[in-house]
């Protein structure tokens, strides 16, 4: 059986573009979008197909470039984002717990808040205690030096 030179695994190279066929059960649409987004500075990307079964990605380089290399680079990006996506799905619970903890750390109900730092101590009669005599108005002493 003659092997088609333009077929490389799951991608097909034509004159000015490379088409990739992606199984969306392995790579979900979010992963494909993220990988495609990484290529938009170098290529024109179009996505088509059925998101539940198979997605067809077409990469058309903006400048002359090795299409085969671009196809493999896209495959690597897919793998990269698939791992990230799966990891973030697994860590979702613990990530949310950490954020929730961080938000609740300094929160307490208003009834429990006791701010005694700046409030002066009061005696039973309602007068402010002043054991150091700070509240007395300051007057300069008369100098004892005789001239």
């Amino acid at each position, binding site marked *: 059986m003659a092997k088609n030179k333009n077929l490389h695994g799951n991608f097909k190279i034509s004159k000015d573009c490379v088409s990739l066929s992606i199984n969306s059960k392995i790579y979900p*649409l*979010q992963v494909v*979008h*993220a990988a*495609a*987004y990484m290529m*938009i500075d170098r290529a*024109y*990307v*179009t*996505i*088509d*197909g*059925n*998101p539940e079964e198979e*997605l067809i990605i077409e990469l*058309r380089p903006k400048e002359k470039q090795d299409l085969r290399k671009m196809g493999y680079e896209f495959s690597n990006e897919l793998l990269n984002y698939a791992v990230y996506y799966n990891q973030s799905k697994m860590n979702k619970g613990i990530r949310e717990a950490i954020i929730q903890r961080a938000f609740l750390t300094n929160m307490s109900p208003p009834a429990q808040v006791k701010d005694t730092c700046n409030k002066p101590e009061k005696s039973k009669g309602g007068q402010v205690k002043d054991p150091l005599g700070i509240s007395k108005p300051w007057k300069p002493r008369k100098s004892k030096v005789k001239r």
Partner: protein
Amino acid sequence: MNLKLEKGSVVLTLNTRIYKARSILATAELFSQNLMVDVNACGDRVEVRIRSKTKNAEMEKIGYEFFNYVLADSQSSLFSE
């Protein structure tokens, strides 16, 4: 093929199961500042017709650029959701 060149215009067909309709409209609005953009929907597909206001515009490039913009918009809107 989801891009078709016609006389002085380019017709794009986008699948709304892949590209968000909101992103397509946001991109169409952006492109309409310099080009004439017409958006139509039919089932799962949205047809975008882009016409240039000037002659000798590279309509094919503009069409593919539209796809890239929609992709970028749907990617950035993921973070704001």
